[in-house]
């Protein structure tokens, strides 16, 4: 081979670039996110059902939240009727976070999420409640909710 050294070195770099994920994840266990679905609020529910089916929520929750925002803020509509005809108040605090928050500390941890330190390893996302963070951290999606929905630091003191 002519200029074999350079070509082989380049090919090694090429192979290394394309196998980064294999080396990066080497020896790790494919654990997936640990989603807390047994918060006290959920345990007290008789019918353990979110506003829509879990499959729908997993894929579409962000669209639903967007729709809710539009309904509540722009159209003044505060009641959501789900696909089963059941009514829910359109509220982040009173509907979503009522269940998806961790116990007694939840109110503080939620309204001032920056104080929550548990279960969040990604500094970019550590402003979200644990329930959101578990998946959002896993797939590196930063929710924009908490850039508006937060309690001022003065109030937390």
């Amino acid at each position, binding site marked *: *081979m*002519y*200029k*074999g050294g350079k*070509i082989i070195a*380049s*090919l090694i770099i*090429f*192979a290394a670039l*394309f*196998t*980064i*994920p*294999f080396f*990066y*994840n*080497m020896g*790790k*266990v*494919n654990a*997936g*996110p640990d989603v807390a679905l047994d918060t006290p609020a959920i345990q007290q529910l008789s019918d353990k059902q979110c506003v829509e089916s879990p*499959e729908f929520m*997993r*894929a*579409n929750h*962000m*669209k639903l*939240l*967007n729709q809710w925002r539009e309904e509540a803020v722009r159209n003044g509509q505060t009641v959501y009727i789900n696909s089963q005809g059941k009514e829910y108040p359109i509220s982040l605090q009173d509907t979503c976070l009522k269940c998806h928050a961790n116990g007694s500390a939840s109110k503080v941890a939620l309204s001032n999420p920056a104080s929550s330190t548990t279960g969040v*390893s*990604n500094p*970019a996302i550590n402003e979200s409640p644990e329930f959101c963070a578990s*998946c959002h*951290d*896993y*797939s*590196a*999606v*930063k929710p*924009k909710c908490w850039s508006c929905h937060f309690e001022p630091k003065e109030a937390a003191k």
Partner: protein
Amino acid sequence: MKVLYSFITVIVLIIVASIGASIANLHYVFGIIIPYLAFIMFVGGFIYRVVKWGRSPVPFRIPTTIGQQKSLPWIKQNKIENPSSAFGVIVRMAMEVLLFRSLFRNTKTELREGQNGPELSYGSAKWLWLGSLFFHWSFLIIIVRHLRFFMDPVPFLVQAFESVDGILQIGLPAIYLTDVFILIAVTFLFCRRLVVPQVRYISLPADFFPLFMIMSIAGTGILMRYFFKVDLVAVKELAIGLATFQPVLPTDIGPMFFIHIFLVSILFAYFPMSKLMHMGGIFMSPTRNMMNNSRMVRHINPWNYDVEVHTYEHYEDEFRDKMKKAGLPVEKE
């Protein structure tokens, strides 16, 4: 016709993937086996092609130049366009690979009506360069963004790319700029092949097929992100499973995902045997990657034969007696 042929091929592939997605028993094949095979074919085929190219001899310097060669000391050399040092070559290659320098110099030739009949005229043509630049850079950023599915925890660099890409924060999930750019660019590159008669004439099914594939891949990706949502966490579990060689097959990933991953696999498997190999080939362009030092260094063709030479002295030694008899003059007695 050539367009239709490629188009139908891609449609058939999409139908195959849809069938695979609708039969749960086939998910293992479409989600795990085919991606692995495609990856092996891609890396293996790529290396094979490059090694094969590397074995072809390049004995002489054949750079194409657009600048003054290194010459007498008072003549200013263009050190990048006509490099005589390794550094110059590296800069030239970087400009070629990252900014498509050659394409920037693309010209168009036209016959125009002049005063004395038609005149040949040349003009700059930057649209192809601009379209390619947007297309390739979008593609690269999209690939880097996809690493978030294959790496856990997601490295900062990948997240940075993503937040810059989604900087407009339109809609939810936020629109990625590269998604828009790649669709516009690939449509432009496609239309160019249809509309410009000369380009249309030289376009082959092998030119249209990758375009349709990339269109469909970008299309399914965009549909999956913004419209027919899939369970992203399940997708990532599958991807991490592939990357850790502990494949898992989560249930309930949407069908759009299987179409997407199948088309990507086919594109990757097809890559080494197609024109897409220009990704590796650009680094091996002999007209770009050599320094122009033919006047400073003597390059000897390494596989020159040792030519058997029969010199006059040998000839005379052999025939001296006969030459003398015939009365011919000889140099040595």
